[in-house]
């Protein structure tokens, strides 16, 4: 197997809050001990409910926030130790598309200025035909170049966000719930556009989403996160879940076909606080199969099964 584009090792992020005159310092673990690889040309999906640390993981991989422990290797370069100037230069090889297309564009920039910014901050000359070509590549009319973001629809803005991310032909694009704040019909268009651009430009995607159905449609491999940890890595979209949490996630999806409607059993129990993670498996408080061992010890991401699963009682 060739060298992966991204490899993380024991990636951990803890946020500290309080600790001033009036409150005790509290430590929140947002991402705990994440080790994963992204192969070139792959679409790796990351799913999990809100607050499970998937967006934090994305920002750690791009080093938009600093890691507490662990390492991120991008194409052979250790990112966590890179000096600021080298990191800024490295950023032309990795890009991000943000969840909220309304706040991810500066309201005072025209689209032409938004699309020129990647060239500008990297000190590259902006070719004359670059802005029209970038707009065309994401299916927007050239005439919009002089428009401001507030004159555009959500879907159009997200297309601008994608064009900006791809401006300098990056290797890796992190998509942080790029369709979560769009209408369903627009979501499909954006996903089709992303698939098309990946084929044309040979991109590698890290696709963050809470929508397992969408991830199964779009991604090659799927990482399932729960409370900051990876609980399962599905090697393809057809693989049957082995972790009880992944299984519950899949069962909670609505089927579009009324004949296939079934009863949805909601997960009981409470999510533990990320300020006080349990000693054992984080999912044990809500798991039907949990034993005493689950509550005492943290199950490692085992490699012995058909694919990596962090569970003592895999399905």
């Amino acid at each position, binding site marked *: 197997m060739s060298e992966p584009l991204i490899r993380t090792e024991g990636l951990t992020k803890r946020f500290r809050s309080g600790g001033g005159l009036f409150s005790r310092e509290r430590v929140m673990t947002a991402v705990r001990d994440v080790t994963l690889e992204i192969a070139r040309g792959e679409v790796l999906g990351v799913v999990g409910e809100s607050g499970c640390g998937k967006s934090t993981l994305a920002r750690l991989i791009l080093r938009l926030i600093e890691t507490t422990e662990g390492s991120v290797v991008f194409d052979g370069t250790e990112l966590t130790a890179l000096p600021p100037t080298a990191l800024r230069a490295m950023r032309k090889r990795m890009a991000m598309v943000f969840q909220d297309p309304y706040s*991810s564009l500066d309201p*005072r920039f025209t689209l032409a200025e938004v699309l020129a910014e990647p060239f500008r*901050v990297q000190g590259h000359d902006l070719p004359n035909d670059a802005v029209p070509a970038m707009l065309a590549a994401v299916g927007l009319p050239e005439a919009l170049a002089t428009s401001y973001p507030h004159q555009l629809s959500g879907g159009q803005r997200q297309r601008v966000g994608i064009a900006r991310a791809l401006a300098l032909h990056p290797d890796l694009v992190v998509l942080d719930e790029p369709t979560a704040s769009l209408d369903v019909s627009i979501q499909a268009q954006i996903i089709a556009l992303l698939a098309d651009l990946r084929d044309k430009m040979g991109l590698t995607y890290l696709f963050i989403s809470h929508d397992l159905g969408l991830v199964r449609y779009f991604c090659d491999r799927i990482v399932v996160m729960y409370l900051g940890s990876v609980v399962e890595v599905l090697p393809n979209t057809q693989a049957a879940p082995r972790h009880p949490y992944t299984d519950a996630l899949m069962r909670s999806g609505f089927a579009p076909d009324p004949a296939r409607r079934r009863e949805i059993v909601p997960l009981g129990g409470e999510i533990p606080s990320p300020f006080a993670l349990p000693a054992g498996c984080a999912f044990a408080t809500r798991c039907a199969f949990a034993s005493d061992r689950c509550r005492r010890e943290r199950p490692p991401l085992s490699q012995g099964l058909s694919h990596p699963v962090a569970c003592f009682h895999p399905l």
Partner: protein
Amino acid sequence: MSAWPAPLRALRWPVGGIAGAWLIVIVAAALFAPLISPYAYDAQALKEAYGSASAAHWLGTDEFGRDLLTRLMYGARTSLSVSAIAISLSVACGMVLGAAAAWFGGPFDRTVMVVVDLTWSFPEILIALILVAIIGPGTTGTMIAIAVAYLAQFTRLTRAQIMTLKGETFIEAARSLGAGNTHILLRHLLPNAFAPVLVAAMLATGDAIILEATLGFFGLGAQPPVPSWGGMMSAGSALVFKAPWIIVFPGLAVAATVLAINLYGDALIAELDIRSKLRGAG
């Protein structure tokens, strides 16, 4: 239409237009006073003292027989220039301090805010008196006193703007492209913080005219015979029954100008507010 800058678009509003027209008249009178005023501001004609409105003196004369219209025009020169320069100074210092405080945070932020809040807690009259004691009476002291009086407001406003903007996704997006601190501060943060500060500065100029008149009333601003609206009202206050026009006309000038600035400022707020446009479009 939208190609016009917001300050011009604000004139298209009915109230904004009338207010703007008055401001243009006052500013023109101040700028061109030496050319268009009927008399010299210190030309005394003691025989015509305490004269009411007449063909020769449209607004009457004061206790030395000086033409009130002429003195009002020169007074506008003093009041407007002192207020505008003081507020510009205050905005410039406030934006630098506020942006630096928000950007660096931590102990620097706390120190700046404590010092700035201290300036807020001193009465302006006291600051003006101290400055008069140090540098002598005149408009410089008044300007600095007014600038100090408004410093906290602009520092706090800029700081709050930058703090909010720092958390916006487009800042993170710029960083993800490889933008450095200078680019983010100069191209994203300050331009976005500027519009609210501009409106606040506009409205503060109205308040500053009143403050300048107050300081002038106590004899702290421009020194006689140079007229200021506050100084003219001070002289007229002793003669309010004998020659009420001496105090009424400068009073009206202050009131009308401050009102016009506030009304025009309201129109400008409506024109500059990107978010309200966004609501209209969505």
